[in-house]
């Protein structure tokens, strides 16, 4: 009985005050559309940044005459350095095969294999790559930099590249996070404000309800139900538009453009759930809370 009453009250209110309800619905629709487009973009950007960062590594080149014993010792020394995740040895034969595949003519001309054995050192976190690099090349008495083992020829010096990659990807991640937070706050404020406006139009009604002895929750429930209905309708429309856009625009492009097809972006089902619950929750909470100030009679 009660549930039915509240539902009927909510439907009546939506019908009778169609304009404010429509404004609230449109606000939910637009903000959720923007969020729905923005979430996958942020995720794709973060995914791209992460994959760039995961390629950050330090290469340790052995002397060409290094023995297997020396190599085993160097591997152990590298593993002892903090923040090293993995060490992978690429033998000169493997390196030669890889390189000559890329440029067969040049290597055929060369005749011999000029490449040394190489250790690919991958840090546990891209941000620690410089620390690892520094540990591999301790400063010498003469003021230059040496290596931790005499059998090491040199350590790749991509200090500048690494730094740039880290800075740029950091910036991208932080910007994306900041934009997400701002957009979420803006959505909540926008929706809450629209709801407050539609409630303001009905504050006299609330006053009368209080005077005939309605309890706060008795007054509030129809508004909360209305918020849920409006939020769900707005979210449903937004999801429909996004779905159409995905099928019509994105899917044909996905085969050509790897960023869109990136497996790191949110699945459409998850996006639907996120948007739907955000729309419903924000609207219901917005209605229920905005009503508080009008209930003080």
């Amino acid at each position, binding site marked *: *009985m*009660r549930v039915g*009453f509240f539902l009927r009250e909510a439907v*009546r209110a939506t019908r*009778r*005050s169609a304009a404010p309800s429509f404004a609230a619905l449109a606000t939910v629709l637009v903000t959720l559309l923007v969020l729905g487009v923005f979430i996958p973009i942020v995720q794709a950007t973060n995914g791209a940044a992460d994959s760039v960062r995961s390629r950050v590594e330090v290469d340790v080149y052995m002397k060409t005459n290094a023995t297997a014993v020396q190599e085993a010792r160097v591997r152990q020394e590298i593993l002892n350095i903090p923040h090293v995740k993995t060490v992978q040895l690429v033998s000169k034969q493997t390196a030669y095969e890889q390189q000559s595949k890329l440029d067969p003519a040049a290597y055929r001309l060369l005749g011999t294999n000029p490449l040394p054995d190489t250790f690919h050192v991958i840090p546990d976190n891209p941000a620690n790559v410089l620390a690892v690099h520094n540990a591999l090349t301790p400063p010498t008495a003469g003021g230059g930099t040496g290596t931790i083992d005499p059998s090491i020829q040199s350590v790749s010096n991509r200090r500048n590249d690494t730094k740039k990659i880290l800075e740029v990807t950091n910036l991208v991640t932080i910007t994306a996070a900041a934009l997400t937070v701002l957009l979420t706050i803006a959505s909540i404020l926008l929706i809450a404000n629209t709801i407050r406006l539609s409630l303001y139009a009905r504050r*006299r*009604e609330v*006053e*009368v*309800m*209080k*005077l*005939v*002895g*309605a*309890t*706060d929750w*008795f007054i509030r429930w129809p508004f909360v139900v209305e918020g849920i209905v409006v939020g769900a309708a707005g979210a449903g429309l937004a999801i429909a538009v996004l779905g159409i856009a995905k099928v019509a625009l994105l899917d044909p492009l996905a085969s050509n453009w790897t960023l869109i097809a990136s497996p790191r972006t949110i699945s459409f089902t998850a996006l639907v759930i996120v948007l739907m619950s955000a729309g419903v929750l924000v609207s219901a909470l917005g209605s229920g809370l905005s009503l508080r100030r009008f209930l003080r*009679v």
Partner: protein
Amino acid sequence: MIDFRGVSKLYAGDVGLDQATFSIERGEFVFLVGSTGSGKSTVMRLLIKELEPTAGVIRVAGHDLDQVSRKRVPYFRRNVGVVFQDFKLLPNRTVYDNVAYALQVTGGSRKEIRAKVPDILRLTGLSTKLHNFPHQLSGGEQQRVSVARAFVNHPPLLLADEPTGNLDPDTSIDIMRLLYRINRTGTTVLVATHDQAMVDKMRRRVLELSRGRIVRDEAAGFYTRDETTRDLARRLRAPSTRPPGL
């Protein structure tokens, strides 16, 4: 039914009500008169606990208002019907739904609503206006809807704040007659008004307020308690019989 003991209400330095003491018995019909700002509305708003007194004790229908918590206020208000000068109807509900709302609020069943609402609308003479919206009604009709809504729960106390303030004399008489009819069912009725002519003709008990003080409390004599509503209406419509110089 109503008991004020030394009740004062101060508004940011201004006196709304000053040491008011009076009591009203069950079944009485009482006028509360006084000029604008004399404290009539303050009394009304104190009675439904819309305001808290600065000092003093108010008892209404067996409740000490100081003991009624904020949470219980809605339940207390169901014991008091209220009628306002500006009707305060819900604009987007029909006459029927406006009255029914007062029952829905108290958790009245659909069966109960279907039984009670037409009854009270017949009593107030609105049977033909069930499905009209407030803006389609005249002022007198709107006020009758408001009275119907206030009385549908059969509260022991009915308050009317300037119920005839927006109405012409003839319509005012109809409303007064309606309030009197409700009074005759045993409901205590308190009417705040500055319609002096109406008060004189009704010849009921009068409480007069001036600058927040009770300055007159007289059981305006020579009326009979069991006067019929028709007799009352006839007397109200007659030209003033007030002796000159009074």
